[in-house]
């Protein structure tokens, strides 16, 4: 048996070794696949903050993922066509600089999360699941019918956006850019968890009354967690759009929100590396099972079922065999 810490290290080393090997062996597609896993992991790390630590199951995180995607798509589209985004009251031009796009994705996703969170966090349990889903569905239908930016066809951005000093078209360079952001978000989340804020949030999930008794405003704690969570997922959306050089309403779909949850459960709820392990395993399964037969979804379903039935706290829990640190 391995300790959770060792599993985390192993996961990290996989995220470094596999792409390096792929680079040496000239297997660029493996790098693309790992980039996909890293971005999904980033999105799920965001979700895990409110879901795992905060105890609120958001079934609508695709709203932020898609928003990040559209921020990238719209800015890059305007830059590509040399048409300003806004001429009045002030001139706003499009851009294809990644840092600017990231920053805007984070800010706008945080704002959206503030609105959605302010409304949704008044409910809990299944009601919370459904109201977050409702918001994501609104975004979905809105984007489908918003013909200025492609409607359901989405938008193609022919070239990946730029990052100072890097050639982002080179798969390995773009991959490590994504990996750095994933690591940064892991660091952020882990220090948040250890901070007084994180401890209070964790305590609020287990016993709201006690936290309230100490005089903390639970609602504000949770709202803050939700905003950070949405912002991280929004950033992941911007990266995902850049990976595919394409955005479409599909990035708002409820299936995607569901997949984020699935990543977390596969890996282990509330564990720092749960979403990372889950995303890696899921992307791997999708890739390898897809070749087996036309009906490969059946195999995927069976494997997911086995994971739920036989591991109470995700794959990490199954391997670490010492139970989750939260139940």
């Amino acid at each position, binding site marked *: 048996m391995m300790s959770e810490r060792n599993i985390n290290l192993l996961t990290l080393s996989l995220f470094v070794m596999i792409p390096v090997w792929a680079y040496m062996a000239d297997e660029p*597609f493996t790098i*693309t696949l790992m980039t996909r896993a890293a971005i999904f992991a980033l999105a799920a790390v965001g979700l895990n903050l409110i879901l795992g630590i905060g105890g609120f199951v958001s079934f609508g995180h695709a709203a932020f993922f898609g928003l990040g995607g559209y921020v990238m798509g719209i800015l890059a589209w305007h830059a*590509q066509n040399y048409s300003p985004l806004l001429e009045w009251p002030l001139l706003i031009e499009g851009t294809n600089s990644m840092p600017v796009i990231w920053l805007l994705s984070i800010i706008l996703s945080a704002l959206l999360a503030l609105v959605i969170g302010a409304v949704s966090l008044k409910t809990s349990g299944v009601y919370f699941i459904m109201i977050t889903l409702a918001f994501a569905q609104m975004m979905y239908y809105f984007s489908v019918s918003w013909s200025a930016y*492609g409607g359901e066809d*989405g938008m193609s951005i*022919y070239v990946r956006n730029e990052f100072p000093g890097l050639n982002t*078209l080179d798969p390995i360079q773009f991959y490590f850019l994504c990996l750095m952001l994933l690591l940064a978000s892991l660091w952020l989340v882990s220090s948040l968890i250890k901070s007084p804020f994180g401890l209070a949030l964790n305590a609020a999930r287990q016993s709201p009354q006690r936290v309230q008794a100490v005089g903390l405003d639970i609602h504000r704690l949770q709202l803050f967690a939700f905003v950070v969570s949405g912002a991280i997922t929004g950033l992941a959306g911007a990266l995902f759009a850049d990976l*595919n050089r*394409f955005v479409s309403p599909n990035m708002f779909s409820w299936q995607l929100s569901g997949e984020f949850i699935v990543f977390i459960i596969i890996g282990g709820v509330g564990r720092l590396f749960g979403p990372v392990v889950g995303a890696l395993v899921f992307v791997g399964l999708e890739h390898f099972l*897809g070749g087996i037969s036309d009906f490969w979804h059946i195999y995927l379903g069976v494997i997911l079922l086995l994971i739920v039935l036989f591991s109470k706290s995700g794959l990490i829990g199954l391997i670490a065999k010492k139970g989750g640190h939260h139940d």
Partner: protein
Amino acid sequence: MKSLLNVSVGIITAAFLTMGSASADIKVGMITTLSGGGAGLGIDVRDGFMLAIKQSGRSDINVVIEDDQRKPDVAVKLADKMIQSEKVDVLTGIIWSNLAMAVVPSATAQGKFYLSPNAGPSVLAGKGCHENYFNVAWQNDNIHEAAGAYADGAGYKKTFILAPNYPAGKDALVGFKRYFKGQIAGEIYTKLGQTDYAAEIAQIRAAGADSVFFFLPGGMGIAFLKQYSGSGVDLPIVGPAFSFDQGILQAVGEAALGVVNTSQWNKDLDNPTNAAFVKSFKAEYGRLPSLYASQGFDTANLLISAVAKADVNNTDAFRAALKSADFDSTRGDFSFSSNHHPIQSIYAREVIKEGDIYTNKTISVALENHSNFYTQDCKM
């Protein structure tokens, strides 16, 4: 914009040229929908395509097939896989416009050929056209334009039109109106994926129209037709082939009987290629071919004709070979317009019952040797 595009295309091409295919064989990547609700279309395209490859007897054409699950991001991932790891020369297979929009621009920018066996979004025909993109099916508007022309010829004066609220739906209504000169009694955009049309049918009933045109692909069309036939509204319907094709028709059943729909192909088109295709498809797979199967079959034959003429690594020669469209199409006369979309006749056909099976009979030519509206926008 153009200069920026050219520069970037240059960069991408340079990045990928280093891994051009090594052997003289040609490798084809097919990305199509093989699972979930829309799988029937992808399976037909695949089967038609592979039938042509098999009949050609060529062993130097390798086809890799992958399932896109009808998700744009999966299609992009598969295109990356095909290009980066399988190192294909030609891509094909995508059914849906939104998936094509996700894959085609970047694939052609990377120097790959793309042969579309089904989707033909207007962007790829106009401003976003590309010399390596060939559409072997139709430009999205075509079938609807023919429906407009047919409705006009049939003497309809006041038509009610409806389509889902998404780009292909808007293209459909625009296409129809382009060739229909009568009055529009009402125009509705329905929700994408909607399955209940009672509200729309009530509006049709109240609109005082003399005919109905609808574009509702897949299950949406089945639902609409069944509900329409039970509603007591008996205005004649005109629609594109998609809701009346071989695969879907059996599920619509009697409700479709007698409906006129427009298509560039039908199994009774009188040419030897088509007769042989229908016969061999039935023998091979035990079912009648659909529109999509014919498109897959034609796409493969176009490819085979080009392979016979030129080496795929000689890009210019191969492109010219594709452009000449020197193959026997199941549709009879076939050539490419300046923006690499078909110039072909589009027929009006009527749904009939042959024994126990619902199928179509060609009744007239709706548009003869029809090209597309976007050639002027394409600077190639």
